Structures are given as C-alpha cells and as structure tokens.
C-alpha cells in the first residue's frame, strides 16, 4: 500500500471512529427498553426450547424471572407486574425440575415480598393460592411453601375463602405420616381470618392440637439449646 493511501485509510478510520463517538453521545439519552414478561409458552414449546436439557432451561428461566423487568438501569416495580402471568411462569418453570425449590425461593422472597398497600394483598393472593396447591401436592417435600402460604395469607392477604381452604387442607394433614406434625397448627389463625372463630377456639382446646403444640415447643427449645 502506497504511503498516501495508507495515510488516507488512517484518516478515514480515525474520522469514522470520531463520528461513532459523536453518534454515541447523541444517542446517550435513548435508554434501552425494559424487558416485559410475555405470556408463558405451552409446556411442550417450553421443553422444545431446552433442546433436551431441561435442567439448563430451568436454571436460565429461573434467573430470567429474577431479572425480568430490569433494563437500562431502571426497575419496573413489582406492583406493575401481572401476577397471574408470574404464577403461570413459576408453574411452567417448576415443571422442568420438580425436585428443586429455586422457583419457590424466588416466588416467596422476590415476588412475594411485595408490600405496596394498594395491590400487595390482591397480587400476593395469586402466589399464596399457587404455593398452597403445590405444597398440598407434595407436603412431605414442600411443607415449607405450604407454611409460607399460610402465614402470608394470615399476615397480608387475609382472603377469607383462601384462608378457609388452606386451613381445611392443613387440618387434613393431621393423618399424614410425612408432613411435619406442627403444620396443622397453622390452621387456627387462618380460621380466624376466614371468620370461623368458634371453630378456631374449638381447635385450640382440642387435645390432639395441644399435644402437637407441646411437641413443637419442645423441638423449638431443643433447637435453641434451651432446657
């Protein structure tokens, strides 16, 4: 390459780079769009996307559910999310790996942490409903999410119908050999939420429930190293 041509190439290259810098400065004000949560695909389409490796897709989608709504340094508040859609995604993702708790960790500590006074009760009720059903499907493995659903309903959601259904489900676990023995105790405050105070009082004085409470307190003391 002749000296003149080489110099011209250098000049053009530096000029092009400078133009790029100027364009970047001009475009600085345009912020990237926030990624929206789309409606979930069908279970079959979801599995096809995994290309045979469900575990990889499970981890990627769980991570995506943690990040979606965050873009270009901006955050979409949880109160603006469609929680029916959130639950549909959580359920679809859980089907990829029913042995993992990551979806429930995400649902409880992230989406379930909504505190907005005008929307929290209504939106978290969707999660409570899903957690309760998932917990009842396998109480031995997922009792902690059943417990989360019960306490979240008692403290935040306060939905009488949902509270009644959860209370009845928890009481049905009294005969379960695999669920923790203290779990049915959570039914009592839920019955108060549903307005069934007489039933709650009856359960408080029920000998079986008293024994369960005693065992639970004993275990708590043991765990805390107290006599």
């Amino acid at each position, binding site marked *: 390459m002749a000296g003149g041509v080489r110099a011209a190439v250098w000049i053009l290259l530096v000029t092009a780079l400078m133009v790029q810098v100027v364009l970047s400065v001009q475009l600085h004000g345009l912020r990237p769009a926030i990624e929206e949560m789309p409606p979930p695909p*069908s279970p*079959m389409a979801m*599995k*096809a996307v995994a*290309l*045979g*490796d*469900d*575990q*990889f897709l*499970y*981890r*990627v989608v*769980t*991570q995506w559910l*943690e990040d979606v709504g965050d873009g270009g340094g901006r955050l979409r508040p949880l109160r603006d999310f469609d929680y029916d859609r959130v639950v549909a995604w959580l359920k679809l993702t859980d089907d990829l*790996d029913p*042995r*993992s*708790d*990551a979806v429930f*960790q*995400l649902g409880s*500590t*992230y989406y379930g942490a909504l505190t907005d006074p005008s929307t929290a009760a209504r939106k978290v009720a969707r999660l409570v409903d899903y957690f309760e059903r998932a917990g009842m499907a396998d109480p031995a493995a997922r009792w902690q999410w059943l417990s989360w659903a019960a306490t979240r309903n008692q403290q935040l959601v306060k939905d009488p119908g949902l509270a009644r259904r959860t209370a009845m489900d928890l009481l049905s676990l009294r005969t379960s050999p695999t669920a923790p023995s203290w779990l049915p105790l959570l039914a009592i405050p839920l019955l108060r939420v549903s307005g069934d105070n007489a039933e709650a009082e009856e359960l408080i004085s029920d000998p079986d429930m008293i024994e369960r409470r005693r065992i639970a307190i004993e275990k708590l003391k043991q765990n805390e190293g107290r006599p």
Partner: protein
Amino acid sequence: MNALAATVRYVLLTAYRDRLAIAILAAQLAVLAGSELMAAAALSENLAVGLATAGAMMRAVMALGLITFISFHVRRMEETREIEVILTRPISRPVFVLANFGAYSGLALLLAMPAGLLLGVGYGAWTSGLVEWQASLMLECLVLVALSLFCALSLGSATVSVMAATGFYVMCRLGAYFRAISEQHTGMLDNPVVDTTARLAIEVVSAVLPRLDLFGQGNWLVYGPGGAWGIWTLTGQAAISVAVLLLATIRDVGARRF
C-alpha cells in the same frame, strides 16, 4: 495402517496450526467464568445454576467448535487438492473416510476431556453424575464428528456445511418434541390432507433422527445419574448414528464427489 497414521498425524498437525485446542480451551474457561457469574447472581441453589449453565454451554462450545473446524478443514483439503493427492495413493475411499473419522474423533475426544475436568475443579463436583455427563459428551462428539464429516464431504461449501450440520444437530435435539406435538395433536393445520401429511413427515423424520436430546443432561450434574435411560442406551444410539452417517459419507464420496 500407514494411511490411517498419516491422516491422524495430518489432522492433528492442522488442528495445532489452526489453534483449535487453544480456542476450545479458552472458550471452556470463559464458559466456566460466565457460569460462575450466573451462579453468583442466583437467588438460591447457586451451585446447581453454575453446573447446569456450564454443562450446557460447554456442550455448545464443543458442537460449534467441531462442526466449524471439520467443515473448513475438509474444504481446505479440497481447495489445496490434498484429498485428490491422498486418493491417488493406494487407499480406498472407505479407508479414507474411516481414517478421517478416526483422526477427527481422536481430536474431539481429547478436546472434550477438559470440559469435565473444569466442571470438577471449578465446582468441586466430582460425582458419578459428572462421569456420566462426560461420557455422554464424548459420545455426542463422535456423532458430531460423523455428522460434520458427512456434511463437509457432501456439500461443496464450508459455510453451507456449517449451516447444514448445525441445523441437523438442532433438529436431532428437537425431533422428539416435534413427534410429541404431532402425537398429542397440540398443533393442527386447517387442511386435513396437509395436516396428515405433515404428521406423517414428522413421524418419518423424527424416526430417522438420532435422539441427541437424551445426551448431556444437566440433571446428571445437579442430581447424579438418572432418567429412564443410561450410558448404554446412549452408546447404542451413538454407534448406530455414527455407522449410518459414515456409510452415507462413504457412499457419497464414492459416487459423487471424488
């Protein structure tokens, strides 16, 4: 035997010259670093996130690396007329194909070894699941080598070969799902004749495609060996696929191109 040794030596030398090993090792290290980052960002079950991500990405690195290298390597052999020179020696076309397959396979198996080692060192996951995953990756690499060799020797262009082999690989991982969609009637076309024909075509195509979706399960890395199939099923699948692809390549080399 001389032809085989010479071919193996030639492939290893050109792979060294193309810095294939360094490129794949660098990509595997980058995958390990990226997966560690993803694991650190996860809300829970960080180790499982890292293992599943690293496993899938390392498999993708191997697939793309092998397909690209073999496609362009064969193309260069054609352009420099090395294939014609090799075939002027007392070497039959089947031996030529088998020698190349042997050489590329040896290389692929060597390059696949660090994947499991990196997962073991990076995540301390020295489990039977890792052993099964590593064995599965090596079997998948053998199928990929046979597939790439078939595409590279059958198609005139390296670019077309890369695209065809990648497309075929993705199809092999999707075939079972297309079949399930067809069987469950979750996707239907308006015209019944077209619908039935499409279903029949899917049935036939998915029956012919190797079930590569069963290979390299991230579940094995996270929970240990499991599933309704084991390494012997995968070995059988790999042996059949490699045999079919090599026979097709031998037929093509003999009948069409050289």
